[in-house]
């Protein structure tokens, strides 16, 4: 009886391994060039848009076929490190500027400068193109971006006697005043998901003249001065002096804060621009909301751009074909379709204009798209130890500051000393 059990186990093992081997891998056959495109598209509409663009390319280019390899965002950095080191990276790599730059610095990405047509270069705003330029080499085509916007409950603003701002930009002072006007009883003026505040503060610092870093790579240095401290201090003031920020939201993510926005507990919320699509989908019936103009600090409405990117593996046997495909993928129509599906801002001016023309002001699109003109490159994208500093120093330090465990001077000292410890 027991022998039979052992035999069954052995047979099971062999059978399952054989079955497994049947489904594994596939050899390369002679025929058309096949490019592997590791795509991180995650929304059903964006997956569909990506598949549609690739299908169109494949139909028009029988000799250069593109095969989509869908991959999730979770763990993709580790996957890429292994793929590049193991010589098994795809031809075309979808990622984001802040994370792809280290791969370029390490020499894993092809220089696309000579492949990107001049019209395309001119079509990409300078600041965004700078965010994918490393040592004068264009290492990726930027595709999709987000900016931080203020979403407001129009009814609550009107009930508080606030005129909904409509200009090209809106000052932080204006935001503060509206927050004060709409804070009444159990309702707060603002909900701001600052559980992981570093990205928000880094992105919005350019409006206050904050750059944080000087230099690139391992030579970068960090200075936390007036421009860098302006936004954290403003948030602190609004939260604890004005008492216009719903405290619990400061411990939540942006998405979690939306529940308070829908419930009317906060009149406004600062969110990634892509949340417009979620608000349109999830807000209660009759919820009257609006996107307020981009926030402008003393130095303007600039925000750091961290675009999603398409790069080419330098070891690909088909760098030129891959670059041609990416150029096709980022055509005005394709980029507009993809960004509409993902509720993001296209990286080219022409695609932004096309979306503005086709979508109008539905769900705040025109206001969101107008913020695209203020997206600019940021030094942190090109700093080697940024990710480590962000996770181990900056985020805990900001969290302590926002919880009033440290004051502004202590925050600045913690940020700078933490950087020194990491880089010494």
């Amino acid at each position, binding site marked *: 009886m*027991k*022998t039979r059990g052992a035999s069954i*186990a*052995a047979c*099971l*093992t062999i059978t*399952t*391994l054989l*079955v*497994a*081997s049947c*489904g*594994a*891998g*596939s050899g390369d056959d002679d025929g058309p060039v096949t490019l592997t495109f590791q795509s*991180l598209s*995650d*929304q*059903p509409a964006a997956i569909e848009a990506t598949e549609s663009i690739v299908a169109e390319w494949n139909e028009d280019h029988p000799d250069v076929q593109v095969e989509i*390899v*869908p*991959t*999730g*965002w*979770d*763990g993709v950095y*580790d*996957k890429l*490190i*292994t*793929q590049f*080191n*193991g*010589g*098994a990276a*795809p031809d075309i790599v979808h990622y*984001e500027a802040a994370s792809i730059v280290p791969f370029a610095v390490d020499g894993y990405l092809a220089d696309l400068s000579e492949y990107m047509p001049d019209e395309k270069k001119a079509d990409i705003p300078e600041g965004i193109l700078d965010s994918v330029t490393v040592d004068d080499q264009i290492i990726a085509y930027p595709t999709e971006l*987000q900016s931080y916007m203020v979403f407001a409950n129009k009814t609550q603003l009107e009930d508080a006697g606030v005129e909904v701002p409509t200009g090209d930009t809106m000052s932080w002072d204006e935001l503060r005043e509206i927050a004060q006007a709409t804070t009444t009883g159990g309702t707060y003026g603002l909900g701001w998901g600052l559980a992981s505040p570093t990205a928000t503060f880094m992105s919005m610092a350019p409006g206050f003249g904050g750059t944080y870093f000087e230099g690139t790579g391992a030579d970068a240095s960090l200075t936390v001065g007036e421009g860098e401290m302006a936004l954290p201090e403003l948030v602190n003031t609004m939260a604890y002096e004005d008492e216009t920020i719903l405290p619990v939201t400061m411990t939540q*993510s*942006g*998405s979690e804060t*939306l*529940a*308070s926005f*829908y*419930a009317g*507990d906060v009149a406004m919320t600062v969110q*990634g621009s*892509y949340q417009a699509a*979620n608000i349109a*989908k*999830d*807000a*209660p019936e009759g919820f009257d909301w609006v996107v307020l103009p981009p926030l402008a600090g003393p130095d303007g409405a600039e925000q750091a751009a961290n675009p*999603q990117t398409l790069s080419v593996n330098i070891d690909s046997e088909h760098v030129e074909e891959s670059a041609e495909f990416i150029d096709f993928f980022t055509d005005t129509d394709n980029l507009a379709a993809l960004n509409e599906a993902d509720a*993001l801002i296209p990286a080219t001016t022409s695609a932004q204009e096309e979306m503005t023309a086709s979508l109008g002001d539905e769900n705040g699109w025109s206001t969101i798209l107008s913020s695209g003109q203020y997206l600019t490159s940021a030094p942190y994208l090109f700093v080697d130890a940024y990710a480590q500093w962000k996770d181990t120093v900056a985020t805990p330090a900001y969290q302590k500051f926002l919880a009033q465990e440290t004051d502004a001077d202590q925050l600045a000292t913690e940020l700078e000393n933490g950087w020194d410890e990491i880089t010494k």
Partner: protein
Amino acid sequence: MRTLVRPAQYAALALYIVFLGFPLLWLISASVKSSAELNSLTVSLIPQAWHWENYAQSLARQGLVHSAWNSLVVALASTALVILIALPAAYVLARLKGKIRAAGVGWILVSQVFPVILVILPLFLILRTIGLTDSLVGLTLVHTTYTLPFALWMLQGYVAAIPLDLEEAGSMDGATRFTVLRRIVVPLLAPGVVATAMFSFVSSWNEFFFALVLLQSPENYTLPITLTMFIGGEGKVALGPLAAGSVLAAIPSIVFFSIMQKKLTGGLLSGAVKG
């Protein structure tokens, strides 16, 4: 006082079951809620409206069923391999004395301290050399290797618990060494084998990182890889479909456990000490 002991025990047990079962109930609840309800401040275990579309979306997307099949194949194969290798090895480890045993035990313990991130690159290069990256066979071998030390540790504990006297009694009754193993040791080890098989199966079924890095083709993706695709960039999460996919993903584990649980208790009852 004694009359209160039994109700208190039941109350404690009930609380423990609620503690264990609540996350699963919450997951099931989330899997049938609409996106709007999931993003509202109203918290309720019972959905306001049953939103079965999450299951349809989950099944329609990313080849969930195919990846579940891949996971099942890899989990069953690695479990079978682990048991086949660990069973005799555990017996030797438990019964052997001397330096080889010490070295074996040392290897088991040391192998547990290496973080996955440290071994993934050399592992990837080795598998690439033998053509087993992007292959379910390669992943099965990796899962087997990764699970084996702990499985060995578990099983050798079960073997050590079997009194040596029983084996000696069998030998004195004229049984050969093989007969002693087959008729006495293996039946007594059944609960240990079942427990180890459960551990191996669940470890492989849930394993994410090796699968993420080693598998390149969507047709080879296992379930954890497919489920992470519901989590997007910029903090976007398709919570409803993700919950629905997770509920579906839990079903094979629950079925496997319910089958094996009978064997686990059955094995315990059919022990060697019969009087």
